[in-house]
């Protein structure tokens, strides 16, 4: 009886959760994904600048967040989501979809190769920041509207 109600509660929870996701507009979803990547980069940047001590676990977690988030990110640009919700997505995304997706995947791939040999000290995290920053800039140059 107890188990049954737990299963029902869990199932209900899942339903609510997916409903919440379904209700979230792609514009808002992709913005929160970029914020997640920014947060992970903040962890790495703090270590690179020496504001926080080196922490292998935190570095691994941050790189994992970047890698997984950036795999999902380019799928959040369906037709009809070109404007609205203060999106900074450039129209070029829908004109050069393949190039845009390749550039987004590049950041995921860069994070994955860093995971294969996790930077072992502050200087290593610093050079990882340069690699990741290059991928960010390459995409933002063309596909994010100037402010």
């Amino acid at each position, binding site marked *: 009886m107890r188990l049954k109600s737990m299963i029902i509660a869990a199932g209900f929870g899942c339903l609510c959760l997916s409903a919440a996701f379904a209700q979230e507009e792609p514009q808002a979803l992709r913005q929160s994904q970029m914020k997640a990547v920014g947060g992970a980069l903040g962890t790495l*940047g703090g270590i690179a600048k020496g504001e926080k001590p080196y922490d292998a676990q935190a570095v691994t977690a941050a790189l994992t967040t970047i890698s997984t988030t950036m795999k999902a990110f380019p799928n959040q640009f369906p037709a009809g989501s070109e404007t609205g919700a203060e999106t900074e997505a450039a129209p070029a995304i829908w004109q050069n979809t393949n190039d845009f997706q390749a550039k987004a995947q590049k950041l995921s791939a860069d994070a994955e190769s860093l995971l294969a040999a996790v930077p072992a000290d502050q200087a290593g995290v610093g050079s990882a920041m340069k690699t990741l*920053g290059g991928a960010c800039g390459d995409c933002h140059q063309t596909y994010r509207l100037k402010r």
Partner: protein
Amino acid sequence: MASRWAKVLGAGVVVVAAGAGVAWALTKPDPHPDTYWAGLGEPDMVNGEHLFWAGGCASCHSAPNATGDALKVLSGGRALPSPFGTFHIPNISSDPGAGIGDWTLAEFGNAMTRGVGPDGEHLYPSFPYGSYARLSAKDINDLFGYLKTLPASSNVAPPHELQFPYNIRLAVGGWKFLYFNDRPRVELASADEKVRRGQFLAEGPGHCGECHTPRNALGGFLADQWLAGGPNPEGKGTIPDITPGSRDIGSWSEGDIASYLETGFTPDYDSVGGSMVEVQQNLAHLPKSDLEAIAAYLKAVPAR
């Protein structure tokens, strides 16, 4: 009676001729004498490469959308839109026919620091010699030496497409008379060596002000608005104020600015975008001390 008219007419011709003579004297192409470029010896390739990246040569002179090693092939071919028309950026690769492979040091130096082409003609200031004029003869020798080591390309860019009267090269002499000089853009209270180095990099090779300083209708900088930002000269949008008074980066520390130039990340880990991406990626090739010098300079200029 007739002779009086002849006198008046004659005097008029003399006045006009004298006026034209004075105008020509003030606005004619004015290269450095050959002796200025003599005896500079072997170029320092390390300084030459630093100047190449600081100067952002590749951002205009490489092929459209070039990245990586292709940035070192200075084939030209990009178009630079402006309020005066479209400039087509020339080939400055080491190719002797299509590029600058057969130029002398004096020809290269006079283009870079005097805005004078190899045929003695005025160059358009879309090529930012108004900033590059701050490079020394030694710097020019080092950069020229480095450029010669880069690959040749046989690409030939189309001629510029400019509206009247901007298509008259002679008129550039008037612009130079009004706006061209190699003096410091701002007087700095600090004589600190780091700030001076930053001033050289930012006002000279880095040519930051070419985009970040607003201009008047004739394309001259508004002197009291140095680095204060303004409309994008290449089209839509605005270019941010980068003085300590900036609402975008005024709150950034010197370390924040240096770190942004090195990695492309803002202090809150947003990333560089738009045309600043290429600038940042070029500057990332410089030693960290140079990026720190630029940051120190940006903190030392008057707030706008």
